């Protein structure tokens, strides 16, 4: 039962990540291209955030992500720079957790998502933050996102707690709602602003 990772192809058997040559940033400071990865427990709404951001849509039916899906979206900032996000929307299932390095390695941005109605997902988010601090790119921009902010009445994770945790870990924190589109664009704009403008090594 179960099995090991890949096959004979040892030269590429390493989890070197899914990088283009410029995965961690871009050479042209006016047209940035960044790799962004979303991590978090299953069902917190990672895919919904991405779909809201990329397509402006919201699909309330839950679709379990398999492995990871790749999408991209370009935004323009005030200072006439454009940022093209290459987004890796990872599966939240336990089953895929071990493969996360494949997706977050070389990422310039990691968005760690939790569900404000689920303390458990907040714990999982903290796990991911630790994991990223340990194994992520050194200059990675970390964002902590409390999703499902429209469900205020069911809130179980307080803003203060999350904010405190984010500050302690040097993260950018925001609460969003993919359903109402609240703060979704802000999230990505804020991330874009925080990107290091000089190419990272």
């Amino acid at each position, binding site marked *: 039962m179960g*099995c090991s990772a890949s096959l004979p192809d040892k030269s590429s058997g390493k989890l070197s*990540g899914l990088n283009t040559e410029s995965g961690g940033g871009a050479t042209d400071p006016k047209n940035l291209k960044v790799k962004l990865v979303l991590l978090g427990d299953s069902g917190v709404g990672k895919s919904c955030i991405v779909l809201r951001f990329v397509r402006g849509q919201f*699909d309330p039916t839950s679709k*379990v992500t*398999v492995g990871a899906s790749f999408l991209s979206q370009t935004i323009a900032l005030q200072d006439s720079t454009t940022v093209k996000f290459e987004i890796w929307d990872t*599966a939240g299932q336990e089953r895929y957790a071990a*493969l996360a390095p494949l997706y977050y390695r070389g990422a310039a941005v990691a968005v760690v998502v939790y569900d404000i109605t689920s303390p458990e997902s907040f714990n999982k988010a903290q796990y991911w933050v630790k994991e990223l601090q340990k194994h992520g790119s050194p200059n990675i921009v970390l964002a902590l996102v409390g999703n499902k902010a429209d469900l205020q009445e069911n809130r179980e994770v307080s803003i203060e707690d999350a904010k405190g945790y984010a500050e302690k870990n040097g993260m950018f924190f925001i609460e969003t709602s993919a359903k109402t589109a609240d703060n979704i664009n802000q999230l990505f704009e804020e991330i874009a602003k925080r990107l290091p403008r000089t190419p990272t090594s």
Partner: protein
Amino acid sequence: MESDSNSSIDLNPDSLNTNSPPDNFKFWSLNESNNVKDSEHVSNHEVSAGLANGSLYDNLDQIEEPQIEKPVPCDSMIVAEAFEVVDEVGKSCSSPSSAGYVGERGSSEVVNGSLYTNLDQIEEPQTELSVPSDPIPVAEAFDGVSEVGQSSFVQRENSELEFDAHSSPSSSGYVGERGVGVASIRMRSLLYALAFSFSCRNGLKVLCLIGEGSCGPSSTSEIEEVVDSDADGDVIPQENTINDFSDSASWVPGKRHIDEDDASISWRKRKKHFFVLSHSGKPIYSRYGDEHKLAGFSATLQAIISFVENGEDRVKFVRAGKHLVVFLVKGPIYLVCISCTEESHEALTGQLELLYGQLMSALVQGGEDLYEEKAYGDILEFLDYLFSSIPVLIERLGRTRPDPNREDRMTWIYNNTLGSNVDKDKEKVGKMLDDEKRELSQGLKTECSGEAGINSLEKEIKYTSADESSDGLNSLSHVLDSSGDVNEMLLILTKSVNRCFEKNPKFDMTPLLGGTDAVFSSLIHSFSWNPSTFLHAYTCLPLAYPTRQAAGSILQDVADSGVLFAILMCKHKVVSLVGAQKASLHPDDMLLLANFVLSSESFRQGEIWFKEEEEEEKEEAKGGGDDDNDDKVEEENLRVSKTSESFSPICLPRYNPMAFLYAYVHYLDVDTYLMLLTTSSDAFYHLKDCRIRIEMVLLKSNVLSEVQRSILEGGLHVEDLPIDPSPRTVSLSPHLGQEKITTESSERTRESSFGIGGPAGLWHFIYRSINLDQYVASEFSSPINSSNQQKRLYRAYQKLYASMHDKGTAPHKTQFRRDENYALLCWITQDFELYAAFDPLADKALAIKTCNRVCQWVRDVENEIFLLGSSPFSW
């Protein structure tokens, strides 16, 4: 092709094969006179499969038409009505009264692999119960299930019974008389409870357990019982209403009836249950109901399996009234199907095999899953989790240093990780460890990266021995991880997943399967409509030869660039498929792969938005950035950004059950999707480029629009069967490919003849090409247009297939069988298998003639309905 000059006179379906009998006509007449099994009686009784040639249904008349008793009061049900059924070798089995066999069997030995449990004596509700010699195990064993048994009584129409009387039903006088050991009692209690809970409707009459003993299946026999006179493959109409929605055309994958458990009446009425459980009885998957609530039931199943295993035997299936309980043991995973669909146990076993394959493809990630499960990244925590041995390990890390010798290092790391919790009984376990060590190092050398793997392990060991505290542990895991190659370690881990179950019987696998319900339920659904599940072949979308060639050549290009498999599919049908050299894809893997992709909504996610958003997207993109420098490629990328692309690990159990591949999956339109499989985890961008190339070519060469057209037109229609295959004018598929003009006309003629099926009462056929591993099925004609009828037909085919492929008997060439629903004809040669369904009143000689024509027809159009040429299967 196929236009050779002799085609006008040659009716020989074997004409393609040089090895086949040269004179088909003779062949046929031979068959007609001697070989064709003809059970012309209309019978709802499944004809026992695979009888010896010639002496076929000799006994059937005795079996047929059992006196059926209408719903009987409980106490009269004890009178078993067991009918002798011809077993595989045609000899009748022992009568039910020989059920004392259980007792004689003893606790561990099995003679001839047969084990009959005659429950009618046990079941006697009026019997005064004597206390069994050792009541405790019985009670224990029965604990989990007594509820089932009890509540099933509630359903019985005539339940004046005392529940108490049944809380230990096996403890009847039977025990004393037969002197059966406690284990046997327990066994029977379990069977009893199990069968009882499932045969609540018609009552359990006879239960038969068939083991797989040294003498093999040929010596097994069945005591079978027919309960319902209208048992025609469809079960009680009332059930149909509550039952699976699988019949509806708009079937949506996903778990149903999650609120049920084994106490629910509705749950027990389901026609077909599938269970997956661990060897310790923990539920892993159940088709219906909440796994966690079915723990008791799972334990019952486990007890049955392990009881038989204790006797160094294996339980294959249990028949209980209308229900068949089929078991499949795969290491620490047990799979069970409980069905009253009248499918054969071979068919159900095949389905369990596929289910296991699908489980593997999910669990495979399991190797790593398990590693992550609780440990969240730290490999030693995983080991802790796996073996509950971390304290021992830490202690040992503190005081032991690995020997410089490599072999000893292996021992060291092995003893200190995998074997660390065996301290107490070192002597005993020593040998076991040695074996494992050998296995492990062999595994590392061969399956892993050889030197590299061992080196990396050495590195770990150095690190750990350097720091002696738990810091050391962290650094170990860090080294492991930062070396960027967890693969080596994972090999060890996965090698020990079995061990994981062995050492931690409480291991709960359900969390690992989160979100996979849809995949399993969709697979189970496909058992009733997808012939691939029993034919072990795949089917192609009918396409003009040049169209398929165009698709194939671009896929081939890609495969040459390092993609292991490139597969273009439309729903469940293959458009084209190419494998890298020497890589071959098993049809079962394709089935599982397609099922996995089709049932996982997330792969399609982008496509939903694709059309609606196209316009806006373009504008947005324009407004977004003015990067003119990346011309064409960038434009493509913008297109790309509209649909999501997925990159996911997947295991193809037939290809390599111990490894997983990475699958790039992308929908090109609503139904058509491309799968690129690779062994390399960082090939995503390469695959993405490949996909862009492929998509461009497919669009340019109109393959995608041809695909859409083919979907609309469908495949072969029995109504289109050429009247006479000999005239040369009949050439090739009227409704396929380029010959569009003929298509139109034939379309019309078909519609006019709609409602009667094809010539000679031909309703449907499946032609399976053995060399190609492909089959083609005709479209359903009107006599079988409801999904229920279709399902029934597939089940009939399934039985036919099972009977033709029965290993116990000589291979059959032809079979003709008639029942109230169809006349079925099966014909197998070296090259193909043909399954055809006719009107039940069809003339046999005419049917045979028609089959010849079907074969000729299929061969005439084979380059449009099959994927020929550089098939990866032919390597």
